[in-house]
């Protein structure tokens, strides 16, 4: 006595088909319910995603550019290791000072983002990091200028 009805005839035509003469099995009704649930959840997810992306399009670009910048500096620093060995001198000294400080600044920044919570603490931690990085860069540049320079310093240390 069971009459098989296409699921689509029940699911996409709203409530009316339920009163129509074609019969539906409880099984198909259950399938229709879960399908509807998924549709509704999907549409709510889409609303969520679209609203967040429309008002935060600018800020999310900044984060991805930061990410790319981090990787670029990492690769640059990697290339400076052989450069420091083969062509030691002021150019590489200052380049290493800059790349090293920036790499360290962004790296510690990620560590702070992971472990420091709370508006005030985050602000304090980031401000301290900025100070530390500026002092580090200043110190390295001073060393490059007044003293032997980074490349020579490592060479001298290794030949003690």
């Amino acid at each position, binding site marked *: 006595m069971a009459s098989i009805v296409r699921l689509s005839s029940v699911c996409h035509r709203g409530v009316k088909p339920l009163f129509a003469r074609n019969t539906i099995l409880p099984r198909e009704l259950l399938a229709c319910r879960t399908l509807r649930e998924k549709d509704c959840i999907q549409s709510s997810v889409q609303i969520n995603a679209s609203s967040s992306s429309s008002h935060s399009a600018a800020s999310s670009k900044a984060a991805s550019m930061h990410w790319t910048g981090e990787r670029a500096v990492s690769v640059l620093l*990697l290339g400076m290791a052989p450069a420091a060995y083969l062509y030691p001198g002021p150019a590489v000294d200052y380049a290493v000072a800059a790349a090293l400080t920036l790499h360290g600044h962004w790296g510690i920044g990620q560590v702070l983002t992971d472990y420091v919570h709370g508006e005030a603490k985050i602000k304090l931690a980031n401000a301290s990091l900025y100070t530390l990085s500026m002092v580090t860069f200043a110190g390295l540049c001073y060393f490059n200028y007044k003293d032997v320079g980074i490349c020579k310093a490592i060479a001298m240390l290794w030949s003690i």
Partner: protein
Amino acid sequence: MALLLRSMARPGFQVCRSQFGVLYRHAVPMGTTAKEEMNKFWDKNTRLNRPMSPHLTIYRWSIPMVMSITFRGTGVGLSGGISLFAVAAMVLPGNYPEYLDLIHSLSYGPQFLAFTKFALAFPVSYHTLNGIRHLAWDTGKGFKIPEVYRSGYVVCALSVLASIGLACL
């Protein structure tokens, strides 16, 4: 027969009806960002003084876990060392060769020097090699679990070898 079908259809209609109201309630755009949600979580839990569930003390440590935190540890350590060096360069009197002569006059023997060189070279080589591993992950490669372990072992072995090599220079 018709009675049976009508009795099935009625509860079906009621269920569908209630679904529409309940599920469309989700169709409201979120007003907070992920960062705000996270801050709310931390603020509430610190305010209520809730203890944190044990995690690091109970979870089984794995090679990838240990390598990851060592990567972070060497990064923070190296960064701290560089900052210390930079501050010392500005604050301490005299210049670099003088300090090297001081160390030279104090040295306890070739083994001590070799060991110190190894101790300095290891964090650098480990951080560099694992950094390359990270960059490979950033291109999307090497995420399968056997690959993660294999690349991890390679990084560990190469770090030790590179450090020994550098210490012998």
